[in-house]
């Protein structure tokens, strides 16, 4: 239904609540229990609190480069409430809420950004690929999984993420095009956060947004206010149902803003203005959903402070667990390169052990 009314050709962004949390589009207010909304808000708050904590760990030199989600939490927050255990998640790297929903632990997330491969071998998360760093290259994987789902006639859907910058890559095109031809059950979520590192969206493409690109692939597309939890939830939910009905892929463009730096090594003041950041602060997804909750008397400041305190403790606990993970065996750097390890590589491992002994013996 929303796909017709919000056909990208009409250049209308799908919104349900305004910046103050007032419902401005009641017709499309999703049917969702108060409990679920509250849970979603808490998920988003947890993600945000984690992000803030990580920034401070990073400043203390306790974790390496990390890409914060700050300002974009409603997108993963919405996916988190729709995605099922059996669905696949093919991530980029800025969707913490979705990872947690899929079963990743915060500790694992920390481990990865502390420099442990173990951090993406998510122990309790099925059907969840590791983060993908080469921009947009994960999208064809999602389509291949979609093919398998159709071939094996399974009731599964693939969620995959990419940024606005990522839509410029050839792999974005090839993935969406294959998905269209194969009618694969894949939901492509573009987090259009207005920047690819320092590069503003207008440098990425001359098209009117990303949703319209669905026309190039003959698939459904919709532009959504990515900072509006209800709109995102509704769009993801309908996409999920549509894909389950066999109606093929959907391209969701979630309009949002990366309120923080690109990663912990980035300094946005180099390339954007305060005024812009402040304008987007008005549209902050947590702020808006919180206003809605408070308005309905489901939530208050006091609860929030309490939650944040609890979250901080929990986050710190997991962080310290990760910090104490300890060394992994040297074999680990060798043994996952191949299923069937070549002789040569075994030899290199043995040689390295010999060298280490020699080094120790020499006191070097």
């Amino acid at each position, binding site marked *: 239904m929303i796909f017709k009314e919000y056909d990208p050709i009409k250049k209308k962004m799908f919104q349900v609540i305004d910046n103050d949390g007032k419902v401005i589009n009641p017709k499309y207010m999703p049917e969702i229990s108060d409990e679920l909304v509250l849970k979603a808000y808490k998920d988003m708050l947890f993600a945000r609190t984690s992000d803030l904590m990580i920034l401070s760990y990073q400043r203390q030199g306790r974790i390496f480069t990390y890409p914060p989600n700050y300002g974009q939490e409603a997108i993963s927050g919405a996916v988190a409430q729709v995605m099922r255990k059996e669905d696949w998640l093919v991530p980029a790297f800025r969707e913490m809420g979705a990872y947690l929903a899929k079963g990743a632990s915060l500790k694992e997330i920390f481990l990865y950004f502390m420099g442990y*491969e173990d951090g993406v071998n998510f122990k309790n998360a099925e059907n969840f690929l590791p983060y993908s*760093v080469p921009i947009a290259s994960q999208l064809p*994987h*999602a389509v291949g999984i979609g*093919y398998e789902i159709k071939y094996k006639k399974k009731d599964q859907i693939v969620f995959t993420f990419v940024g606005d910058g990522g839509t410029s890559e050839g*792999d974005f095109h090839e993935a969406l095009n*294959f998905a269209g031809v194969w009618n694969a059950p894949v939901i492509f979520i573009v987090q259009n956060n207005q920047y690819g590192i320092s590069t503003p969206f207008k440098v990425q493409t001359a098209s009117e947004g990303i949703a319209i690109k669905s026309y190039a692939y003959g698939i459904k597309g919709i532009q959504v206010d990515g900072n509006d939890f209800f709109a995102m939830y509704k769009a993801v939910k309908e996409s999920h149902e549509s894909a389950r009905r066999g109606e093929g892929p959907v391209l969701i463009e979630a309009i949002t803003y990366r309120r923080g730096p690109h990663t912990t090594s980035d300094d946005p003041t180099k390339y954007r203005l305060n005024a812009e950041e402040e304008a987007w602060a008005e549209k902050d997804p947590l702020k808006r959903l919180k206003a809605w909750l408070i308005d309905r008397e489901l939530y208050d400041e006091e609860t929030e402070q309490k939650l944040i305190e609890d979250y901080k403790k929990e986050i710190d606990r997991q962080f310290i667990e990760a910090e104490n993970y300890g060394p992994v065996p040297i074999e680990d750097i060798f*043994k996952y*390169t191949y*299923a069937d390890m070549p002789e040569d590589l075994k030899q290199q491992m043995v040689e390295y052990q010999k060298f280490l002994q020699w080094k120790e013996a020499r006191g070097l």
Partner: protein
Amino acid sequence: MKQIMNMVNAINNALDIKLAEDDRVIVYGEDVGVEGGVFRVTEGLQKKYGAERVFDSPLAESGIAGTAVGMAVAGLKPVIEMQFSGFANPAFNQVVSHVSRMRNRSRGKYSTGMVIRMPYGGGINALEHHSESLEAIWAHIPGLKVVIPSTPHDAKGLLISAIESDDPIWFMEPKRIYRAIKQEVETEKFTVPIGKAKVIQEGTDVTIVAYGAMIREVQKASVLAKKEGISVEIIDLRTIYPIDKETIVDSVKKTGRIITVHEAIRTFGVGAEINASITEEAFLYLEAPPKRVTGFDIIVPLPKNEPHFMVTPEKIFYEIVRTVKF
């Protein structure tokens, strides 16, 4: 039962066997479905196994390799075709960043066991980009194994091994001998192990390591050499990575001399690695410097001048003489 097969038949037969016995096997690529591939390697398979398992893809190599990553991760066994090895280039990022790395990245949780097969090499009067031999590049990528058969028999046995491997296999088919060599091949299933070279001719004076379409040229060169009283040992490498160094070292310990032969350009080619590592391991046995007979460091010429580029029996013989007389 045995049957006369050329390499195209043998590969088709291997695919047929695996498609029949394992429903996870999916074959796709440009024109592989209805037409059965531009070299007819997949002929008849779509009819037999249906368009869900054997089919044409859009014309996009990164998409082909990238979707195969997804299929493999989800539990299928994609066997994809790149129409010519020169057109695998657009898939480079998918292969380097994902096909070869997903197992390591996920600490073994997800594997990308798949086969990426393609015709390669020169000598067929082709247009630009249809004649390259880029095996050294793919062999330099950790996580990938690179296989090149030189006979119908090996092509079948190696391809079956490749499909059954949990590692991704880059499977290069020397198209110049697709139909040029015929051989009795077992029609039942059999495998040839990946990572094992084969001494296909014993000799005492010099070891020649080669693979693919070069084997035939080396055999002809060894006939020329024999007339001069030079006895050549020929090793068919069969797998480019991992290299079966043991077989080569054993041979060089006997002959004291080694020449590596490949059609690919010389510099940073396969010959460099073979010769360097054999020198490391058999230094004291060497009676002459390890040599290479290879293509020049140029772009493969169009057909009129391609013969200059190609490695011929005479070029190999020339180097044999020089090496033995060193």
